């Protein structure tokens, strides 16, 4: 039987030492300055023009999508939306550092990662309208994306639940011997949930190749981070779990890209978790149900608007000669058009037939669900006008 000594690495002191905050001083990785000029001391990661264009294009597309969808919600065309304006770099930059076989388990504000993976405008619209072409069959609210082909796990609303799940998913990848990691996104608010604690600790102990990426955007709905935790952000917790940790400027897509590359490298090589804290700011309202003017100042927002991640990266590209103003204008215009025309087109796609109300509860519907469906269909047939979305296709 192995002899264990849980004191082996611990030194002695003979005075009452109170360890407190401020001990760690975790700096934030920034490569590009706000104006897009690299810091003198910074070593930029390798990046091709093509990759840079994809990153910028994705960030710009997402910004447009957000604008249009918020407007569509105001017009009553969709019931709900949730924008990531101001945070595009955290999710697009990190997704760009991954491989397609890596699993993405996200919270809900990571449309950037999804778009980077190749989710199309049409697919976005299908989800928003909960229609029958949506692979999740329209069962959840708008923005709860999920698509197996892109290794993007279907989102669920309960916060934090994906964190231990990501540890388990990554453990499975490791056991299967895959050359793949899992990335798990969450907000600094969600990091208060017990599941965060469970997920990080288990990943550390069970050595799961998972990247935890916390978007610390200063708010959880109306709750500012100073009422969410008293420590030094989320990064300072990594040490406690024995999880390697990187803090990064979430508005600097280059820094996020570099940090995530490094994290993936470590996670795969050492088969262990890495925590990234991306410092950013939610410029948008929490969702279309929210109005931030009730809890924060315009000045504060303005200060952050000046740190726009999209502009910063565009400026850098410009300095590289990779940015054509005219072409970009065209791209933006086309994207806007595409969103609008897809929106219009998809609006008309019907929802799933009523039979789908009972599928996927189990692999095969058991007797009680079949009975309930039969009753329901008979009822709809009796009152077709009351259930117009399904009565036409019983």
């Amino acid at each position, binding site marked *: 039987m192995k002899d264990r000594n849980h004191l082996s690495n611990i030194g002695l002191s003979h005075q009452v030492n109170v360890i407190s905050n401020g001990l760690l001083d975790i700096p934030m990785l920034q490569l590009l300055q706000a104006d897009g000029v690299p810091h003198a001391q910074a070593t930029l990661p390798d990046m091709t023009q093509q990759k840079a264009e994809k990153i910028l294009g994705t960030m710009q597309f997402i910004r447009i999508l957000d604008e249009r969808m918020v407007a569509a919600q105001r017009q009553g065309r969709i019931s709900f939306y949730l924008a990531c304006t101001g945070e595009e770099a955290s999710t697009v930059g990190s997704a760009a550092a991954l491989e397609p076989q890596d699993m993405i388990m996200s919270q809900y504000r990571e449309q950037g990662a999804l778009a980077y993976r190749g989710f199309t405008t049409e697919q976005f619209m299908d989800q928003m309208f909960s229609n029958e072409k949506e692979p999740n069959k329209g069962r959840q609210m708008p923005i709860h994306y999920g698509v197996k082909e892109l290794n993007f796990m279907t989102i*669920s609303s*309960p916060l934090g639940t994906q964190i231990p799940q990501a540890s388990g998913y990554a453990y499975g990848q490791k056991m299967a011997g895959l050359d793949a990691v899992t990335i798990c996104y969450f907000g600094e608010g969600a990091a*208060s949930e017990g599941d965060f604690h469970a997920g990080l600790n288990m990943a550390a102990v069970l050595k799961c190749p998972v990247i935890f990426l916390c978007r610390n955007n200063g708010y959880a709905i109306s709750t500012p981070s100073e009422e*969410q935790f008293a420590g030094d952000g989320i990064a300072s917790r990594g040490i406690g779990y024995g999880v390697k940790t990187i803090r990064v400027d979430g508005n600097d897509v280059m820094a996020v890209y570099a940090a995530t590359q490094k994290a993936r490298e470590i996670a795969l090589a050492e088969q262990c978790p890495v925590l990234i804290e991306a410092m950013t700011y939610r410029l948008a309202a929490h969702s279309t149900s929210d109005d931030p003017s009730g809890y924060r100042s315009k000045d504060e927002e303005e200060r952050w608007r000046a740190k726009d991640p999209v502009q910063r990266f565009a400026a850098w590209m410009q300095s590289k000669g990779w940015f054509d103003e005219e072409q970009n204008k065209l791209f933006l215009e086309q994207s806007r058009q595409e969103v609008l025309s897809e929106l219009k087109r998809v609006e008309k796609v019907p929802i799933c037939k009523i039979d789908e109300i009972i599928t996927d509860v189990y692999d095969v519907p058991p007797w009680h669900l079949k009975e309930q469906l039969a009753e329901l269909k008979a*009822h709809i047939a009796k009152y077709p006008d009351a259930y117009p979305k399904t009565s036409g296709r019983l």
Partner: protein
Amino acid sequence: MAKMNMLQAVNSALISAMTKNEKVMVFGEDVGHFGGVFRATSNLQEKFGKNRCFNTPLTEQGIIGFANGLAAQGSVPVAEIQFADYIFPAFDQIVNETAKWRYRSGGQFSCGSLTIRTPYGGGIAGGLYHSQSPEAFFAHIPGMKVVIPRNPYQAKGLLLSAIQDDNPVLFMEPKRLYRASVGEVPEDDYIIPLGKAEVLKQGSDISLLAWGAQMEVLEKAAQMAEEQGISCEIIDLRSILPWDRDTVATSVQKTGRLLISHEAPLTGGFASEIAASIQEKCFLHLESPITRVCGLDTPYPLAHEKEYMPDHLKIFEAIKRCVHF
């Protein structure tokens, strides 16, 4: 008296309770300065200070754990869970702690002063995670009380009762009615007793039983039935645990028929307990099987929400089936 919607009624009850008893504290996610995502706690922080109305970190198990300790200490916590769908991380603290605290300590300590408020229910395009009606889970927890109001007047009176009551109460608010239901509400304090159902309408052919937002639906169905000459007795259960079996049994002994409706899935829903008890209590009076009109045994779907819901048409049909058994 003033015209209030249900949110205003809840807010008014909280103001009353906090004014009368400085031990009352209100907390939860976003309930502080912002007043909660539905604004049920508006202005409380302004009025009573940050120590008595405050935001918590985003952790339901923490909120209820904290509230349990606070209650055991002798304070009067009113904890908010932002949506009933998010109460499950706190389930252990409720089942194993809140509800068992008094019993395990032989009455030395208790969480009796705790009230947990949470919006529940469907009909707002909320899909799987903004629509659930989890009352049945809590009705299987000895030591808890579970209360659901149907309108603003009931909300204020029952909430004030819940806060005063020396037992932990889960107070579930039908969020679909938050702004939709408006009525006269006294500005002064009043209480409506817990554990008592209310017969809203006398009738002779069938007893209809529900709670919360489902009362409206029941009334609409009853109206359709009345037009066909079926006389309906309508009962609002109000308290799910302990529930008022006598009022229901008395009604069923008169009408000989019972229909129960809730939004939650049928299997294992609270209608099953009522049906099981009443078939036993009223066996010789029953003229047709007790009927349940409930949610389907599926998660709560978005696109098929309309089809999923136990609406007035489904209830109307069931009433007819029952009466013509």
